[in-house]
């Protein structure tokens, strides 16, 4: 079981985020997720432990990492085709690697990078707090995402409650895959829930995300009953939920959530994250899948708006 207490692994604190809730926000990414969505565009946030990126474009094949690795997990210097960009060659044997980070420390070109810093609530919020003047002028604030924040109920509770104490608006971006008790405990400290809905078909959901959608749907319905402010986010994934039928079912369900539902953000699939998969040395089924454009999801927007739901493309 992973750690949930004073500290959590953070992969990124991204300031000037404008697509994750209202206004100008700072998005905090926690590392670790219970779901295994095949299309995941934050692959570095799935694993609960720190990981290592290797970027071929920055690597000069100097061999420092090879010399530094106590496990023999790093490949010796080799001549590579620069156009390959890490498609067919990986510097680190991830089976042998115990993530001691010796290679990262040895690298002077920032080609090897540690992903996941252990941080306290205090450390995170000291950074988040710096953009308060921007939040004040834009009704923005903190967005907590991941990974899956509800996988760290204690840490997430501490972080959100402290953020509220410091007067910062909060959004919680969640898959909703957790117990109601966890969500219930967070409710007083969340101004807006950014709630992901992927697919209404239980079987399909289980197949492509690794988990059942029934707690997710139940939790969402209950949040709506409690009158929480909710923005539902629907990733549109080719071959998974991009059919009129799937989208129609989602729209039908979401209509029942009004008036708690502030809006729906349609998030068209993109493959810009393919580099992250390469840096992590992982295969990705969607690498060859074309990114969707705004036009590709226009039908879905019409279905939702037809039911009187305020809809954006891209948040």
């Amino acid at each position, binding site marked *: 079981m992973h750690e949930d207490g004073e500290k959590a692994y953070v992969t990124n604190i991204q300031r000037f985020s404008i697509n994750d809730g209202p206004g100008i926000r700072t998005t905090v990414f926690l590392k670790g997720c219970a779901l295994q969505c095949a299309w995941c565009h934050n692959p570095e946030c799935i694993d609960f432990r720190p990981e290592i990126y290797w970027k071929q474009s920055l690597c000069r094949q100097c061999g420092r990492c090879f010399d530094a690795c106590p496990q023999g997990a790093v490949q010796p210097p080799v001549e590579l085709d620069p156009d390959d960009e890490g498609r067919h060659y990986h510097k680190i044997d991830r089976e042998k690697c115990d993530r001691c980070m010796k290679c990262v420390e040895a690298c002077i070109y920032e080609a090897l990078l540690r992903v996941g810093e252990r941080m306290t609530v205090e450390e995170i919020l000291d950074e988040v707090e710096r953009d308060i003047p921007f939040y004040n*002028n834009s009704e923005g604030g903190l967005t907590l995402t991941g990974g899956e924040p509800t996988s760290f109920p204690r840490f997430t509770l501490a972080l959100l409650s402290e953020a509220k104490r410091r007067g910062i608006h909060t959004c919680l971006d969640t898959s909703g895959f957790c117990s109601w008790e966890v969500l219930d405990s967070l409710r007083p400290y969340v101004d807006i829930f950014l709630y992901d809905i992927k697919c209404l078909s239980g079987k399909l959901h289980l197949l492509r995300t690794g988990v059942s959608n029934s707690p997710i749907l139940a939790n969402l319905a209950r949040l709506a009953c409690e009158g929480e402010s909710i923005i539902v986010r629907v990733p549109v994934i080719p071959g998974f939920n991009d059919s009129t039928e799937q989208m129609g079912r989602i729209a039908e369900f979401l209509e029942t959530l009004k008036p708690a539902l502030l809006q729906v953000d349609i998030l068209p699939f993109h493959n810009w994250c393919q580099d992250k998969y390469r840096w992590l040395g992982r295969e990705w089924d969607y690498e060859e899948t074309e990114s969707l454009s705004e036009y590709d999801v226009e039908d879905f927007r019409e279905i939702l708006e037809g039911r009187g739901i305020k809809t954006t493309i891209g948040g």
Partner: protein
Amino acid sequence: MGGPKMSAVEMRSIEEIEKSGQWWWWAEQKRSKRLDYLRKAVWKKGAKGSGYQPGVKVDLERPILYTQAFQANEHDPLIIRHAKALAHVWDNITIFIQDHAQIMGYLGSRPHTIVWHPEILFLLNEDLYNDRTVIPEPEERSLRIIREICDYWNPQTAGTKMFSKLPPEEIVKLMTGAIGWGLPIHRIGYCTKQWDYMFRLGFEGIIAEIDAKMAEAEERIYRRVPEPEDYEYYKKLDIWKAMKITLEAAVRWARRYSRLARIIAENFETDPQRKQELERIAETCWKVPARPPEHLWESLQFDHFVQILTRYEACDGAWPARPDYWHGPFYDKDVNQDKVLTKEEALDLTGEFLIRCYEVGWFWLMLARDTLQGITGTWVWTLGGVNEDGTDACNDMTDCLLEAARLVRVANPTFAFRYHPQVRMQTLRNVFECIRQGLGYPSMRNDPILIANAMHWHRHPLKEARRWVHQACMSPCPDTKWGCQPFRMANATIIAAKAMEYALFDGFDQVLQMQFGPHTGDASKFESFEELYQAWYTQIKWMMDTLTKVTGAGRYNSSELDPRPFLSAIYERCVDLGVDSAHPSERGNSWITFFAWMETGDSLAAVKKLVFDERKYTMAQLIEALRNNWEGYEEMRMDFVRAPKWGNDDDYVDQIHVRCHNDVAAHSWEIKDPTGNPWPPLPENIAAYVTNATKVWALPNGRRLGDTLYDGGCSPGAGLDKKGPTAVLRSVAKIDHIGAVRATLLNQRLNPTQLAGEKGFQIWHSYIKTWADLGIDHVQFNMVDNETLKAAQKEPEKYPELIVRIAGYSAHFIDLNKKTQDTIIARNVQSLGS
């Protein structure tokens, strides 16, 4: 009907073009036929890379006429000789009227010509003689004339005379570029114009004032027993006389356009509508600049005539203007109240007004062309701001100018917008639209901060401070009687990073291989950060002192060596006092331009961290590595590159920058210009971050000789800001933008996809409100994404109107050299999402 063949792109709907962000196509579809013709008929006068566009030729009429008259009046006082020479040019140079044009006045005798002022600088003259691309046909004859003119002027150019006033060792320093950018001479000017004076009186009114002054002077020296101070009147009479000669000649020149328009209308024009236009042109040019304007077409014509006239006299490298403030009342009267002009007609006039500015060009020094990259001068027009009473000054002319800019898409002039909390929303949206459409302007200026700044440094009273315009790219100057500054201060420029180099090498210039700065000790033996800091402070103070002494002397001597009778005649102060415009009697607006400034704090922070805090390296190792330009020390260099850098909201490095700013500002008060004012720093770079790259040695921020310098005044180094735009603003806000700098330039690139639609405006507006709250004086945006820029590099012919920002102004991207293009691409696009 066989209209022009439409290409596939042209056949797409306006909406499609708008969505694809191809704003140059969009503009072509949206603008009127007249504007389209005028925009396409314009000759681009900025130098492309280092050379001029094919077909652009130097005009020889102006130098021939000027020289003839100057020779013919040898026995006159200098200022009168210059006045008569100008009058001779204006009475005789070929004039023409372009089809569809409504605004007259051209610098040069033909549309494709650029002017050459042989009386400015012998170096310029020799540059021309050796530049075979701009010599008009027949070349042999032209070269013979140019040679004769060079030989006549070279011994007596303004530059020659200024050099004779300076010690040779100072001249050496000025020529290296480490200290000084160009010479402190009056004929290379940044001259704020006093429109309230000109519009109130017209030239005839000013002549009447001069006549009264001369009568009074003669009364005092010829009819009475003169008091000792009255002896000055002997000199002043010459100055007034010279002023009057130029004003009368200027009116005659304008009226030549009037006659020409009438001749065409009465004898040649067959189109009744155009005939009517020509008749109006004839009336307008008869009336202005002789008498005050009463309509928008008259005020714009008056304005443009004055701009052209001053540029016949000398090279005005800047174009200080506040066109919405001065033309706004005429727009309001004609369009909103009397309805004698439609909005569309006003838009056409305004678009042409911008094009007429864009087409102004002169032959200019090779060296300066490189730094200016694609434009004739840094022509920044000021919009928005407040009135003298503090209320919002935005008006319908502001909106008209912003709209016209999107339709004609010229790289020069650019706009800078004085933002304050009461700016009306429709204008703010209009500003945003220009930025969103990738014009690269307006830049945003924080009005309350800059008003306070002008009061703090140069003691302008509140009401006058509220009348400020950009004197050049950045520096606020009131356009009032005692505020107008007629002198270019940009000569007072240092490559500030050289002070860091000197501190590390005991005042020795590593690039030039000679002792330059004072001896501040062998840095390899420094035992504390404080020792290094003090060595640096001594060096930068020495640079500021050396430079401002030269500039002060230049300013003081210019009224004698290099008088400008016409410029003097349009300043109320000069007419009142009977002095040349260079005479330092205005309230003053001096500044020192700091090129390559932010390398200093980043270098100091890296040394502090790695040598004195962590003790990973010694000073001796560092000096050795730097001496070798980091060659063979790559691993060590990477440590210095990774040390904390400005722009990430990190106090470790930011507070060192703040200390440098405050200490330099403190020294500013200890040095005085001829008006008695301090010399505040103004960090910016234009395109000098590229041209100066070979002039600054390796530095402890990890930079090697030849690496591009940081491109702004307070911008982070390219790619060194890792935390996004909000962190950059938080860092920049740590500088005191009232008390520590005259202004400082911040470049920010934003991705157009972030700013689409209503949400895009709301986000940008929040950003700007916060930027203003944080007290930052400037920010400018480059809205073009990397994909576009890379595509433009590959196929420049497809992106002819792509405008990007490089410090202080815009240029067409395809005109820039490869290295500059690469730097722009290397800057962080502040993209969103992970």
